[in-house]
C-alpha cells in the first residue's frame, strides 16, 4: 500500500493561510491503514486547527469528511456541495488522491495535508517499510522475492557490490545488504543458480512518466482480439 505521513502542523497552517472555512477530506484506504489520513487523522487535524484558531482568537469553521478512496471519481462526486461551501480543501490522501480531487474541483484550492512516502508494508504495528519502487519491470521472480531496486540503496541488479559487509550494507551498516538477503533466500528456495545470472541493464524505457495502464478488456473499440 501507499505509505504517507502528515505534514507538520506549521506547514499545514501556513498553506491554509487565512481561510475561514476549511474542508478536510480523509481517504479510507492506504493512508487510513498507515494512520496518516483516515477518519481519525481527519479528526485530529481538525482539532489541532480548532485549538490553534481558538488560542489565537480567530474565527474558523471546519468540516470533516472521509471518503472510501480519493483515487476513484465516484467517491469524489458526492463531495460537490461540501467543497463549494469551503474556502479551501485540505486532502489527507496520497498525492494521487489530492490531484484527483483538485482536478475534479478545479476552481477550489485543494491542498495536501500529507507527504506521500512510498509503496510499502506494515512491518509491525505503527511501522512501515518500503518494498517497491513501481519500476514497471518486476524481477522478483529471479531474486527470491526480494527487490534489489528498492532494498539496495544503489539499486544494483547484479550485486552485491564490494562493500557488502557480513550481511550488512556499506551505505548503512544498520541495514541488511539486499544481495546477501537475496543469496540467502535463493539458497533456501533452491534457486542459487540465479545468482550467477547477469541481469541486463534496467529497462528505464518502461518507466517513463506519467505512467498509464489500460486493462485489455476496457480498451476502446472492440479491445484486443485473442489470437
Amino acid at each position, binding site marked *: 500500500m501507499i505509505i504517507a505521513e502528515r505534514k*507538520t502542523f506549521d506547514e499545514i497552517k501556513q498553506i491554509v493561510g487565512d481561510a475561514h472555512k476549511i474542508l478536510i477530506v480523509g481517504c479510507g484506504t492506504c493512508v487510513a491503514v498507515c494512520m496518516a489520513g483516515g477518519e481519525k487523522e481527519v479528526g485530529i487535524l481538525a482539532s489541532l486547527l480548532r485549538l*490553534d*484558531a*481558538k*488560542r*489565537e*482568537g480567530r474565527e*474558523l469553521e*471546519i468540516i470533516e469528511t472521509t471518503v472510501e478512496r480519493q483515487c476513484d471519481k465516484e467517491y469524489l462526486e458526492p463531495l460537490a456541495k461540501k467543497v463549494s461551501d469551503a474556502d479551501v480543501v485540505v486532502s489527507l490522501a496520497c498525492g494521487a488522491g489530492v490531484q484527483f480531487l483538485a482536478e475534479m474541483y478545479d476552481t477550489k484550492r485543494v491542498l495536501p495535508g500529507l507527504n506521500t512516502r512510498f509503496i510499502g508494508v506494515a512491518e509491525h504495528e505503527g511501522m512501515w517499510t518500503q518494498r517497491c519502487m513501481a519500476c514497471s519491470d518486476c524481477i522478483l521472480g529471479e531474486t527470491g522475492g526480494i527487490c534489489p531496486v528498492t532494498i539496495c540503496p544503489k539499486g544494483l541488479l547484479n550485486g552485491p557490490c564490494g562493500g557488502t559487509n557480513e550481511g550488512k550494507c556499506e551505505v548503512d551498516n544498520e541495514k541488511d545488504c539486499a544481495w546477501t538477503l537475496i543469496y540467502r533466500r535463493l539458497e533456501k528456495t533452491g534457486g542459487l543458480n540465479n545468482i550467477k545470472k547477469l541481469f541486463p541493464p534496467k529497462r528505464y524505457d518502461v518507466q517513463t512518466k506519467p505512467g498509464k495502464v489500460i486493462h485489455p478488456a476496457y480498451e476502446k473499440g472492440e479491445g484486443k482480439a485473442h489470437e
Partner: protein
Amino acid sequence: MEGECHFLEGNIRAKKRVNYTKGLLAEVKIEPERLKMFNMGASDAKEFAHAADEMTKIAKEFGPSPLKKIKNRKRPAIRRIQ
C-alpha cells in the same frame, strides 16, 4: 504500575499515546506539560490524591488555559460540523 496493567502492556501503550498527544499539543503551542499520565492501582487513593495535587500545582504554574484567556477577550465563533 507501569507494565503491570490488567490489559498486560496496555499502560505502556497508553504511555506512548499520551506522549504522542503531548506532541500534538506542542504543535499548537499549548504547554504539553498540562497533560500527564500517572500509573496507579484502582484502589490507590493516596496515589490518586498525590497525582491530583501535582496536576493542580502544574495548572496553577501555567495559569488559565491559553484557550480560555482568549475567550475572555473575544469569543471566537467555532462550530463543529460533521
